[in-house]
């Protein structure tokens, strides 16, 4: 992955920074520059907002065939987590046996390695979720 591409997203990947529409108050994660409901009324009015990282599992899967960067973690759990109504994110669930994941399970975000550019490249950190 290109370094600047990762570096730009650090606030969201490390600290769950999303945005809130200054016009209607709707929240977004990852951050959006334009509110899909308010359109031009939202331009320039989006404020940063930090999500706590607590949420519920909406759906999940246990991955067996993984991309190269994730082969060491197989099998791992990927899930869609709902932070609050209308705000969802995709991430791994860790510290949990695949058989124990359930839809509706409460989770909290943690800070983990999410990848690296090989042994001599940059290490990418970001959020994963563990049972609350």
């Amino acid at each position, binding site marked *: 992955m290109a370094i600047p591409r990762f570096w730009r997203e650090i606030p969201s990947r490390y600290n769950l920074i999303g945005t809130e529409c200054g016009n209607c108050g709707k929240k977004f994660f990852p951050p959006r520059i334009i509110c899909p409901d308010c359109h031009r009324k939202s331009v320039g009015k989006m404020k940063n907002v930090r999500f706590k990282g607590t949420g519920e599992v909406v759906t999940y899967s246990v991955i067996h065939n993984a991309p190269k960067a994730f082969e060491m973690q197989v099998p791992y759990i990927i899930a869609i987590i709902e932070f609050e109504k209308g705000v969802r994110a*995709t991430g791994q669930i860790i510290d949990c046996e695949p058989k124990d994941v359930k839809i509706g399970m409460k989770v909290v975000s943690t800070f983990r390695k999410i990848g690296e550019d090989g042994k001599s490249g940059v290490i990418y950190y970001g959020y994963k979720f563990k049972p609350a």
Partner: protein
Amino acid sequence: MREVAVIGIGETKFGELWDKSFREIGIEAGLLAIQDAGIKGNEIDALYIGNMSAGKFIDQEHIAPLVADYVGLAGQNLPATRIEAAGASGGLALSSAYMAVASEVHDIVVVGGAEKMTDVSEVYAQEILASTADQEWESVFGATFAGLHAMIARRHMHEYGTTKEQLAQVAVKNHKNGALNPNAQYRKELSLEIVISAPMVAEPLGLFDCAPLSDGAAALVLCPLDRAKSYTDKPVRIASCGQAGDYMALHDRRDICVMDATVVAGKKAFKYAGIGPKDINLAEVNDNYTISEILAIEDLGFFKKGEGGKATEEERTALNSEISVNPSGGLKARGQPVGATGVAQAVEVVRQLRGEAGKRQVKEARYGLAHNVGGTGSTVIVHIFEGGI
């Protein structure tokens, strides 16, 4: 706006075509379609070609003039355009060509779709597929393309009670159809037991719940309907085309179990064609994963939401049942060279409407529908065709 017809079709075999390069498969499908249409090279006004990721699969961008060149049309400075919309690249190439002919910008247009996926490692090929999802917020965390569809399946099972067996029945049916298709990648029937007990790829989807990686190309020739009969006895009219988009990431969709883009595109296509789901008994729909076909037959309105699994289990989508879904074998058995898929679906529908489908002929089909999806549903395009005109 004038009416548009399909006057020629062609496709390569789909599979691991080690001996054939990207150019060769493009040429092969194109030539077959042109010969089938009975047109001469200098009658072609433009080429639209769908391709997802030649840049990554074969390190080649700008493939439209490349294919035009190698089909022998560079000498006439043919305008050639590449369309990319992930899995819907082929369908959008068709709709672009359709709009060009309908709006009288061009008269005779060749539509192609081609992808060469097997030169790179399987792992890398899957990563390329995953780049059609939301790279920064899905793929980067390890959500593979299969994983995203598996999450849809899991939620569908949770909300509607769809079972693994019902998902597997999609594969069983499509492999049964594929066995009757000489160009299909897989031509062997699969039993329910084999599908269910296959190794897991992304739970609950196993190896046979997922379409393969394939090489292949398909092509069509379009011309104005009022001229079609001078080329063929069996022109097929493009009755309508509906396209819709949706949020990129699965986690932003309104409802994980509904592909809103399919619902919207389908409604547009039906409305413009002046018919409804009940008028369709022949459909080539997206089945890159078994759950995708279940969603498709629900979201296109053939069955109620949540009942797609049951309908499949009850064989209401089998060949020559209530509605023949994926008589070609679908992406599952026929193969899924991504950019070619949308065009191959149209080729099959046209072939069926002409009555030329041999052992897998759908009887008494007047209309046929092709449903082509990009990503996990951020692009959907639906074409409806009419035969017997």
